[in-house]
């Protein structure tokens, strides 16, 4: 049974509130007393996912599920989907617009940074349908 479940909507191209969901998720985890190192890794991965939703998706959600042994973070959007996931995963590759790059985003680090910070990382995408990213963060050290 999960301890807590929350879902946050993230709107396309809304740079004013971008990061709010991640900040809120960070506060929730801190309040629950989750290990600081895990909170930090999760917050970074979560922010990357949130920014990706803002920049690249037509809108989506971030969902947080806190379990006794792990925290699951899912980013799900309604499109447009990624044609070549392997290419998108490679550091330095980005399809961000010039406007977005002017703000300092679009370095092509997002997905790789998520994978680096999560204990388990899974991405599924279908062009015309959307992208789903599942990240799992272990709360207990493996024996």
């Amino acid at each position, binding site marked *: 049974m999960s301890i807590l479940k929350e879902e946050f909507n993230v709107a396309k191209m809304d740079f004013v509130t971008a990061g709010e969901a991640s900040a809120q998720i960070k506060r929730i985890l801190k309040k629950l007393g989750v290990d600081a190192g895990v909170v930090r890794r999760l917050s970074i991965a979560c922010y990357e996912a949130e920014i990706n939703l803002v920049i690249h998706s037509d809108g989506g959600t971030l969902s947080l599920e806190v379990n006794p042994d792990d925290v699951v973070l899912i980013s799900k959007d309604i499109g447009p989907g990624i044609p070549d996931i392997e290419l998108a995963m490679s550091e330095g590759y980005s399809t961000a617009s010039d406007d977005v790059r002017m*703000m300092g985003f679009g*370095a092509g680090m997002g997905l790789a*940074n998520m994978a680096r910070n999560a204990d388990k990382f899974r991405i599924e995408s279908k062009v015309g349908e959307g992208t789903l990213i599942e990240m799992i963060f272990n709360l207990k050290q493996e024996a």
Partner: protein
Amino acid sequence: MTVNELAKLIDARLLNGAAGENEVKCGYACDLLSWVMAHGSDGMAWITVQTHMNVIAVASLHEMSCVIIPEGIAVEQEVLDKAAEEGIAVLGTQLDAYRICGKMAEAGVGAA
């Protein structure tokens, strides 16, 4: 050193009047937010010419000590207030990033 001490070192003003006692653990200069997301760390003093709200989000997620805005670039009040709320100091100086780095390195502030 503290943010207040760092401010003196680089002729900076504490633009949001907050978190001056934060401990500066290391320094970093970069304007690519996604890059900083991958390389930031806690207690970092981060130099950037970017001044929008997302700078504060990145600094806050990494629990940085301060953001340093070089070359007298103006920062909107809304951004300064958000930083204060998050416990992040915002320093503004007329020096450019290169000179700020030089002074910080000379004073013994290391890289991340």
